[in-house]
């Protein structure tokens, strides 16, 4: 067994441990800088008060609310579209069309979000301005469909992947019994693969929360608490992106770390949930 602890293994081990430490390092950085704020017992204030630096209030509640609203709204649009598309790619379309569609969806994952947002800024925003009738046209409602378009390919690929993992023993049996394609999906594949659907939704929600450019360019960046989806709003990610506008010693700058911590913990707990549910469902088989 001595040989297995060779120099090469140590090299590989170092690389893996180093990458793992970086994950922790990102968290430690945010925590270290956010610590003075957390220690002073203002956490509840920071999380649940509004943002008005003039009055000495640096709460991130409006951003937190906007982030959650925007992510949920885009999920609401993206989920039905993604599940429909994955039905088509899994079974409904003729086999050649399926390949073309799958390749197209994979290429879609590579389209830069900044390009989507740039096109939408000059195409969708004027449309929304006329539709809403007031304001600049930049609102949660403008950003949500674009964000939905950004996260849809990820979800579709994940859904298709988990649908394809259903054992051919089931699908072939269903076909032999004379099922139509849609019956095969609804009564055989979906009951088998629904944990995959839940996991895909978790992944998609994480991506929606973490996206910066769409909300920064399309949601309007107003720091007020959004009262309707047609209001301009600033998400956590956009708030961090605008950090360079602040002085490095100011309270505004310090509240950024709380935003970063929030985002880190939210996405990490989504991932943890994702892992746990994957482990739980695969054990149940």
């Amino acid at each position: 067994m001595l040989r297995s602890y060779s120099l090469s293994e140590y090299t590989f081990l170092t690389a893996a441990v180093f990458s793992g430490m970086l994950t922790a390092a990102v968290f430690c950085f945010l925590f270290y800088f956010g610590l003075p704020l957390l220690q002073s017992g203002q956490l509840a204030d920071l999380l649940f008060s509004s943002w008005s630096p003039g009055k000495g209030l640096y709460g991130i509640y409006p951003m937190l609310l906007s982030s959650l609203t925007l992510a949920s709204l885009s999920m609401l649009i993206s989920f039905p579209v993604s599940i429909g598309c994955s039905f088509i790619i899994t079974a409904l379309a003729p086999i050649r069309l399926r390949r073309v569609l799958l390749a197209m969806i994979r290429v879609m994952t590579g389209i830069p979000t900044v390009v989507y947002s740039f096109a939408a800024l000059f195409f969708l925003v004027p449309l929304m301005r006329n539709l809403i009738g007031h304001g600049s046209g930049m609102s949660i409602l403008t950003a949500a469909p674009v964000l939905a378009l950004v996260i849809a390919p990820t979800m579709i690929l994940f859904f298709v992947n988990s649908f394809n993992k259903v054992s051919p023993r089931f699908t072939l049996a269903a076909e032999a019994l004379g099922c139509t394609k849609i019956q095969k999906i609804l009564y055989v594949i979906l009951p088998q693969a629904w944990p995959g659907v839940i996991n895909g939704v978790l992944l998609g929600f994480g991506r929606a929360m973490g996206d910066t450019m769409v909300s920064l360019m399309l949601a309007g960046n107003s720091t007020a608490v959004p009262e309707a989806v047609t209001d301009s709003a600033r998400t956590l990610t956009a708030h961090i992106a605008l950090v360079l506008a602040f002085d490095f010693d100011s309270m505004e700058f310090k509240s950024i770390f709380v935003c970063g911590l929030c985002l880190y913990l939210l996405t990490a707990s989504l991932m943890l949930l994702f892992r746990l549910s994957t482990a739980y469902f695969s054990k149940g088989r």
Partner: protein
Amino acid sequence: MRKLVETCITAFSWIALFLLIAALFTLIAYLVQKGASSIELGLFFGDTSPLDALMLKRQVFDGLFPAIAGTLFLIIGSMLIAIPIGVAGGVYLAEYCRGKMKPLFNLTFDILAGVPSIVVGLAGLLLTIVLNRHFPGQIAPCLLLSCCCLALLVLPYLIRTTQTALESIDPLIRKTAPALGASRLQNITQVLLPHSINDIVSGIILATGRCAEDTAVIMLTGVVATAGFPRSLFGQYEALPFYIYYISSQYTGPDELAQGFGAAIILLLLCIGLLALALWIQRRFTSFLLFR
């Protein structure tokens, strides 16, 4: 009743697909329609002659050349950092790691993959602040810092693709070389890695695409609107995605706007090109490398 539900869901699925494709093509067609006319040599080099610009004799002021060069440097720099660490980490996870450490590593890299890019950029910014306390005035956001942060962003993808590629190798192939007396390292470097090279390379190309498109990381770690051709690793630089963002909020006239659309088309082509290359490699590269 069931029949009706089934028909409805089928119809709904086709409508969903149609909506997705329509949305995608509307945005892209709009982009092409607005930006196609601005794509010419002047978009890249402005008033400077292309030869002078490429030889770095004269600075380019109103062209995309510095931004494209900046993006290329970013890609090369971050890949130089990320590929060795990522592939080595992936090899460790797939070939050496056993027992309780493995789920822990898996979870760590999942979390890292889920961390929003803006948070990675923020961590980079904080690093400069910490370093500035110890070496005042010497450390500022720069090209090297952006490369490191981008490398951190794509690291989990590289580790994951390498790990999955190695783990999915047929046990028959995995056991042949050791049976003939090869050491573990020889088995990895001469059998397992070459065998899964197409998956690893396409993973690397996907990661490259992410480096090229990511805006959030670089806007906190040193990208600026006008810096000229990047001259040093420790200087500020321009990059395509940030240029597009900058134009969208700061454009002064239709000419600049047209340049922004041109830049968006170029970035789109770059990313789609990289992705198509990755897909093509996944299909073709194996036969090319293994049976030459």
